């Protein structure tokens, strides 16, 4: 039997009207923003299934964009995200897809930053404000944001995982869940580590300096 916190039952504090179509959408945008390096200059949101059919009435579009701008799901500026994005010089567009998706509430975000890099991220809102990212730049993942999360982009070769977990062990950080994904053998890989403790900035820098690690980012519990 699953355990529930009293705050799963009374909460979250959120901007309405829908925990899945508004609060969850904002969370997806927020996690995506953390994955992108530097300043975001444009986002194309491709909406699938229920998101595509009902986003207008639920403010899903405003919530997704608010998340990309870094607003929390309970930020009262969320309904004004279009205006805020314009004032920040962030371009955005929404496309309704008629294709099938991994979940009825799915969005694909094609995000460009000021360095000209493009991130392609797929997220699903799975109910009650809970979300899961399903794809990051062509690699299938499962990322919920419920735990302090470390994501590395690295080369698939022996020793990388051991080096990363050693840094965590030295910092007394317990790993709750851990998954490794790759394009193909020896190619680009992604490691997602969800931990019980918060990961200090200095540990992140140590991890980033490991040979073979291209990038390490930390997503705080949201």
């Amino acid at each position, binding site marked *: 039997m699953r*355990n529930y916190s009293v705050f799963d039952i009374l909460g979250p504090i959120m901007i*309405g009207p829908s925990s899945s179509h508004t609060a969850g959408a904002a969370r997806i945008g927020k996690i995506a923003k953390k994955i992108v390096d530097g300043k975001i200059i444009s986002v194309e949101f491709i909406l699938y299934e229920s998101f595509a059919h009902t986003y207008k009435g639920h403010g899903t579009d405003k919530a997704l964009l608010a998340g990309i701008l870094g607003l929390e799901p309970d930020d009262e500026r969320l*309904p004004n995200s279009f205006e805020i994005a314009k004032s920040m010089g962030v371009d955005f567009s929404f496309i309704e897809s008629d294709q099938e998706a991994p979940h009825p509430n799915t969005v694909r975000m094609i995000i460009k930053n000021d360095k000209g890099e493009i991130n392609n991220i797929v997220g699903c809102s799975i109910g*009650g404000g809970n979300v899961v990212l399903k794809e990051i730049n062509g690699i299938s993942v499962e990322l919920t944001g419920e735990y302090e999360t470390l994501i590395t982009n690295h080369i698939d070769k022996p020793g990388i995982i051991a080096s990363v977990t050693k840094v965590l062990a030295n910092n007394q950080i317990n790993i709750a869940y851990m998954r490794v994904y790759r394009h193909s053998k020896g190619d680009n890989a992604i490691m997602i580590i969800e931990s019980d403790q918060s990961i200090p900035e200095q540990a992140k820098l140590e991890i980033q300096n490991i040979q073979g690690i291209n990038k390490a980012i930390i997503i705080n519990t949201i």
Partner: protein
Amino acid sequence: MYQYNHGNELLELTKKYNLPISQIVILEENERTGMPTEEIFKKMEENLLVMRESIEKGLNEDIVSVSGLSRGDAKKLYERVTIGNTLSGETIAKAVASALAVTEVNASMGKIVAAPTAGSSGVIPGALVTIGRKFGKSNSEMTKALFTASGIGVIIAKNATLAGAEGGCQAEVGSASAMAAAALVELIGGTAEECFNAASFAIMNLLGLVCDPVAGLVEVPCEKRNAIGTTNAIICADLALAGMESIIPFDEVVDAMYRVGRSIPCALRETAEGGLAKTPTGIKLKDKIFGK
């Protein structure tokens, strides 16, 4: 030590430690998460403050939902309360106006507490804040009552469901009403048994309620169902405080609610494929809002 999965277990714990439901719920949260009890209390108090803010906003401002389906109903009713012109009496009408206020703030992309869901977010604040004010209860006492509500909600979540998509509106507004009823009983000084009796009555009265939102939006008929869930909570608390016992025990009522939910056809479980959503007017409104 404080873990509970069922109503009878929670009731046993209240007897074993001679504590109200709210205290056992706080101790269980502390035991499972390691978060200090003061912090747990403070976090719940934040929920209460947001509930109070959303009531104030909805009662006093002209609110229009994103879809345009709902506008200013809470304020309309509150005006009748202020001039003393209600059939249901000041307490019920005020509680209902407060519940409508929260649901309207929700539909207009305002800030609310999902309680237990966004669609049923008006019931607990409407009932608790109105009765709390009437009996001069402090924020701290109302916060305690929110833990009582959560305890009931946890048991429903574990043994049934709080999602309209799984159990229909009875799982959302019905659960909210049960949570609110138990909270009111503890707030007024009733026993743990009376809390469970009130919660049982509340679910029984709304058993079978379907989820058929027009255009798939949490507005019609959801807002008015929050009104009825609020009224139901207050009445069921009164029944329990008068000493009436639920013939069917709480855990069996929760189980019945789950079985009824599973047998509600999919078209009446939040898909907007049946009921009011599929009336000619419901379909017309959907086409208008989504521009089909």
